[in-house]
């Protein structure tokens, strides 16, 4: 189905790393996982298969790529599009339409299918993917998972032979990932050929036939699913890969809990547009706490973090700091949020300038110290937007340090990060905690929680459902949340 022979490609404007001398052969119905560190060339390889290289991203290409009987370099994109379907990382920017129905048929309309056929395929797609609930909606009212499902449906309606997915789970929650996994199983059952580039591996455990590991633009290893599962966690970590079997992760023993309560959230009710989102929130936190916040999309996690840092003002109840209540304005001064899309948080022309932004007399010495601590010092002259995702995140954290913030909220800090970067983020949080900050981490990342959090709060049904200490004793509760059985229970 797919034959790639001795292909090398380098981007014209060097926006990403190319690949060198890659050969790959895939049979019909096979499911292949491409993995490796950020920048290893796995995205480029997916682009070779769906034709974006060389038709969309220009550069120098050598070698031959044949997919479904087509010479990819010679065939125009709209012809490739009929045979090869692509789903991308960011569900927000894949939509051409504003309503879900039109988006599902977008590809069919472009390829000028007759209207009757479009109707038939639309109905089949909604049936197969169980989309009834999200038909006829504005895409701006959908959750990330729902958006990704529509993006998937739009490709599914074209019924391509080959599916190419580039980090499709990056912006999804646990439940949406479970659904994605089901969809992939269905495609496999239909005999489709699937290529997935991913960091998050666990949801693909029962699906992939073969795993290709890339390193610096070259294929550095090929494994079968079982080989891969048997790989020791240290080998895996040295390759920069995430865990494939979540339940195999060892939880640490309960850590010593910090015992100087400083933040108290008392009787807080959160509202959004006059409807109650969450009720009766009671949480206390101490300096040095790293508290994982989990819950389904829409459970109120983002309203909670927005309210905690003073951005959202529709609430009742008290936020006490050292026993005295804080107004939203005071909380805004005291807290900082590192957003999932950190791109909105960087304003200056260099990392160094970013650090002194908004301050009248920046303390040069302290900036240097903080940047060194974040291993950003050598990048201080670079433009923040030219940095990698992890470096951008660290720049945002450096800023929070310099503003002397006490409460730091991380919103999905590890979405789309490889193992190495995840470890770096968790180290960073530990350092911040040791420096006496109160840290909240809103996340769907089980590996991250087990690695770094000492406590965990679970939001469900409009209230704080669990408030636990992370450790071997509470492993069950934590695992429950991240397994499919539990997600179905919550769904009901």
């Amino acid at each position: 189905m797919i034959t790639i022979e001795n292909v090398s490609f380098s981007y014209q404007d060097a926006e990403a790393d190319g690949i060198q001398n890659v050969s790959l052969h895939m049979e019909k119905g096979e499911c292949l996982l491409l993995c490796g560190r950020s920048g290893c060339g796995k995205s480029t390889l997916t682009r070779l298969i769906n034709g974006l290289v060389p038709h969309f991203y220009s550069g120098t290409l050598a070698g031959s790529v044949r997919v479904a009987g087509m010479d990819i370099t010679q065939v125009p994109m709209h012809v490739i599009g009929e045979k090869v379907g692509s789903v991308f990382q960011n569900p927000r920017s894949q939509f051409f339409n504003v309503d879900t129905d039109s988006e599902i048929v977008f590809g069919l309309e472009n390829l000028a299918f007759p209207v009757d056929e479009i109707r038939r395929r639309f109905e089949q797609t909604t049936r197969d993917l169980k989309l009834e609930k999200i038909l006829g909606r504005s895409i701006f009212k959908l959750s990330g998972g729902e958006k990704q499902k529509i993006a998937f449906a739009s490709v599914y309606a074209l019924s391509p032979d080959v599916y190419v997915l580039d980090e499709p789970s990056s912006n999804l929650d646990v439940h949406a990932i479970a659904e994605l996994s089901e969809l992939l199983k269905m495609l496999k059952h239909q005999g489709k050929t699937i290529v997935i580039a991913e960091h998050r591996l666990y949801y693909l455990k029962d699906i992939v036939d073969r795993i290709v590991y890339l390193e610096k633009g070259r294929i550095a290893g090929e494994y079968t699913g079982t080989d891969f599962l048997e790989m020791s966690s240290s080998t895996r970590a040295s390759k920069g890969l995430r865990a494939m079997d979540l339940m195999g992760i060892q939880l640490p023993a309960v850590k010593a809990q910090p015992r100087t309560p400083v933040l108290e959230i008392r009787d807080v009710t959160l509202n959004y547009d006059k409807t109650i989102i969450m009720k009766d929130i009671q949480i206390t936190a101490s300096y040095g706490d790293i508290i994982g916040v989990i819950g389904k999309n829409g459970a109120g996690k983002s309203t909670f973090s927005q309210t905690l840092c003073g951005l959202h003002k529709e609430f009742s109840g008290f936020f006490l700091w050292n026993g005295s209540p804080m107004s939203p304005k005071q909380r805004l001064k005291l807290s900082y949020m590192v957003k999932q899309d950190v791109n909105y948080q960087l304003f200056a022309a260099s990392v160094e300038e970013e650090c002194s932004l908004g301050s009248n007399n920046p303390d040069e010495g302290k900036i240097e110290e903080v940047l060194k601590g974040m291993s950003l010092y050598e990048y201080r002259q670079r433009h923040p937007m030219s940095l990698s995702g992890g470096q951008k995140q660290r720049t945002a954290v450096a800023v929070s340090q310099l503003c002397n913030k006490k409460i730091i909220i991380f919103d999905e800090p590890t979405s789309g990060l490889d193992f190495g970067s995840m470890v770096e983020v968790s180290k960073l949080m530990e350092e911040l905690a040791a420096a006496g900050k109160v840290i909240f981490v809103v996340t769907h990342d089980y590996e991250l929680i087990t690695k770094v959090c000492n406590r965990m709060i679970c939001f469900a049904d409009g209230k704080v459902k669990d408030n636990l200490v992370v450790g071997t004793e509470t492993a069950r509760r934590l695992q429950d949340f991240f397994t499919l059985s539990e997600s179905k229970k919550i769904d009901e």
Partner: protein
Amino acid sequence: MASPNHSLQSKDLITTGIFSTLFFIVTMVSGMFFAANPVLTFLMPIVVALFTGPVYLLMVAKVPKRGPTIILGIIMGLLMFVTGMFWLWSVAYVLLGIIAGEISAAGKFKSVKLNTLGFTIFSLNPITAYMMIWIDQQSFKEYLMSKGTQQAYLDSMFQAAQDWILPGMIAGTIVAALIGAFIGNKLLKKHFERAGVV
């Protein structure tokens, strides 16, 4: 694209669409505050020229071809028409879009000076909207007079408007557009070129 191509690709069209949306929104947000104040309403073209510079220049830098400024003109013209503005304004948008494109093309879309000139000329478009006030002057005067405003007062009012508000607006817009373009070019250099976006 694999080979340098001067015709507009889908990517160029989509990029142009995105930046045109931003251009429209910046025009509305910056212009509306001034338009919403009767004393300051004549400053509207000046403010718009000041703030749209970066959006315009980044668009030209991202799609260095002949089409984008014309498409921007057409989209702006259509949106202004849809929101009920004077039709001459829409025509001005399209015509000035074409002229601005030709000016930038003379410098192969890379010349800072020519792009600035193109933007300055493009920015003169709202002046035409105010022409309605001058064209429609007679009926408007009669209307105000029927409500008891003094004839002499009105005459001096409109005289003043005719004598220097119009030339003042044109001169002010040109200066503002030059400043807007200066800021835009600085932002391009300071941020977008350094980050490798253009």
